[in-house]
């Protein structure tokens, strides 16, 4: 099977042929033309993660991102509302803001010709306005100012946007999967989260989907992480069982749990590519308790509700395609595809507002141990993704197997809970992928 001579753009049937119920063709990871289409169709029509509202607490605070090749600006207005604007001056197209984050005051001002905008993107003025008298300026695109993204939703501080004008609504798109974000926010005695400092930024020389799939891949830890977590286990071996484990040991050891552990953990699959592992318990279940925090939670929520919140121990929740959430340890990873074989993963540490500092220190350590470009666990994973990226060049076999625990009934009724080592979450991601890539009218040329 080869890509169509004119590429996949005009050939929906060829795209459909890439995804079988239980396998996918390697082109989905390697074909640059398909990557272009993913940006235009899948990433443009999905609800993608922009940032967290705690990053822009005050009027004029902004945070810039690039999503689906679009320069975007999240900004807090003078009215207190949060907006997402296309970060492009209405005049000659300069990015209006190029810093990663900051405060722009009451107006956005272009650095080139000094056009200014109010924080909702409306054009306020430009120097020597009289030069436009008698021209067709008022009827032009420029008169509209900076284009706002119309579909923005904030859920428990998490800001999502859908760039396409038409598509699924926010709650229709995420459905019950939002319970993972709820659980994460509920872990704060005040019900509120804050981004704590800078993200770890890890450049992956592999396709973005390998990362997303891996988050609910429970058949790899005991193999890929034998080198890192296994080394930690071996160094700790022989200690008395009642000796308190250092936090680093406590965080590493569960990665080399056995197959039965990961299978019984369970995986829950939702429509539109979302899923989480750790339905019953997870690698985060056996951390040492922090008594002061437990008391705070009981006071805030009552004993029963506090127990229910902290009893959840979800492993990774995938908010397809752009965000993965680890509620039990308060870290999130943001997926920013750059090219077909290049992906930036940004890992943020979250502070549970009102919780003791020990919680944040535990999250900061976990993020560094597991998600940093300097992390041994990260090295294990990225080595595997890169091996796949290079191996897929092989013409000996063009198909990637996703058969584990597949059933033909799955096509219609995959949503639900499955055994933890099933590849059902990946099959669900590719169903969502295929739907977006072959939907009519999802081309991302019209932000209006």
């Amino acid at each position, binding site marked *: 099977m080869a890509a169509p001579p004119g590429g996949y753009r005009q050939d929906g049937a060829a795209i459909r042929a890439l995804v079988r119920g239980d396998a996918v063709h390697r082109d989905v990871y390697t074909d640059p033309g398909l990557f272009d289409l993913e940006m235009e169709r899948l990433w443009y029509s999905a609800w993608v993660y922009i940032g967290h509202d705690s990053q822009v607490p005050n009027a004029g605070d902004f945070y810039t991102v690039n999503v689906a090749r679009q320069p975007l600006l999240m900004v807090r207005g003078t009215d207190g509302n949060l907006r997402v604007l296309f970060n492009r001056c209405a005049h000659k197209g300069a990015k209006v803001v190029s810093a990663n984050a900051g405060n722009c005051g009451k107006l956005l001002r272009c650095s080139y010709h000094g056009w200014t905008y109010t924080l909702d993107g409306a054009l306020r003025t430009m120097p020597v306005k009289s030069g436009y008298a008698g021209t067709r300026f008022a009827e032009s695109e420029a008169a509209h100012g900076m284009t706002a993204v119309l579909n923005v939703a904030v859920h428990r501080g998490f800001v999502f946007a859908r760039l396409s004008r038409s598509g699924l609504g926010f709650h229709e798109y995420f459905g019950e999967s939002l319970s993972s974000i709820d659980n994460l926010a509920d872990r704060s005695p005040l019900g509120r989260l804050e981004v*704590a*400092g*800078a993200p*770890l*930024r*890890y*450049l992956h*020389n592999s396709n973005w989907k390998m990362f997303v799939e891996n988050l609910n891949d429970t058949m790899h830890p005991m193999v*890929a992480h*034998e*080198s*890192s977590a*296994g*080394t*930690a286990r*071996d*160094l700790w071996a022989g200690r008395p069982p009642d000796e308190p484990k*250092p936090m*680093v*040991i406590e965080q*590493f050891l569960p990665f080399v749990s056995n197959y039965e552990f990961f299978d019984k953990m369970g995986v829950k699959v939702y429509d539109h590519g979302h899923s989480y592992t750790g339905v019953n318990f997870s690698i985060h279940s056996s951390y040492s308790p922090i008594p002061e925090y437990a008391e705070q939670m009981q006071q805030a929520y009552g004993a029963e509700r506090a127990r229910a919140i902290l009893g959840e121990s979800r492993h990774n929740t995938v908010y397809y395609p752009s965000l993965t959430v680890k509620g039990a340890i308060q870290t999130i990873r943001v997926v920013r595809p750059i090219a077909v074989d290049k992906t*930036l993963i940004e890992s943020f*540490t979250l502070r549970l507002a009102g919780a003791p*500092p020990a919680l*944040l*220190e535990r*999250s*900061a*350590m976990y*993020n*560094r141990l597991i998600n*940093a*470009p*300097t992390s*041994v666990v*990260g*090295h*294990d994973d*990225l*080595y*595997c993704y890169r*091996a796949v990226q290079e191996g897929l060049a092989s013409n000996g076999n063009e198909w990637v197997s996703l058969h584990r625990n597949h059933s033909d009934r799955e096509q219609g009724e995959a949503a639900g809970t499955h055994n933890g080592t099933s590849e059902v979450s990946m099959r669900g991601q590719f169903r969502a992928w295929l739907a977006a890539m072959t939907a009519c009218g999802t081309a991302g040329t019209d932000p209006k």
Partner: protein
Amino acid sequence: MIANDAALIEFVYHEARLIDEKRFDEWYDLYADDGRYWMPLAHGQPEGRAHTSLFDEDKLLLKIRIERLRNPKSYSQAQPSWCQHILQAPKVESRDPELNVAWLRTPFMYLEYQQDQQEVYAGVAWHRLRCSGAGIAIALKKIELLNCDAALPSLQLFP
């Protein structure tokens, strides 16, 4: 009694050389029992552990890293990485005779190489060296990487 400048400076050169030559057990022994190897993630990042870092290793974590490099199942090192420090002359910035510690500043370049890919890093290393009858030990090595906040590929050895 704090060692003289020449001995302190020689110690910093020696530390870099041990890493480059992969003499990791000898390198590990340079660290005090409470020693710390720290690389902040943000420019001007404050002390403490409320902000995450690129490295923040106590001796246990250093040991895990060193043993992992030797583990035959460390596939990311199947084709081994190599590194090279290029140090500007270290300077003794301050001494604290009561605690027997000295603080040295060393601008550096650091190259890490693996399988046709070579990465170049630069920054400033700060050594807090503690002197005792047993010799000089590293209480803290703080590495301020120039591009600490950049999107980085895998960094597998020790700047």
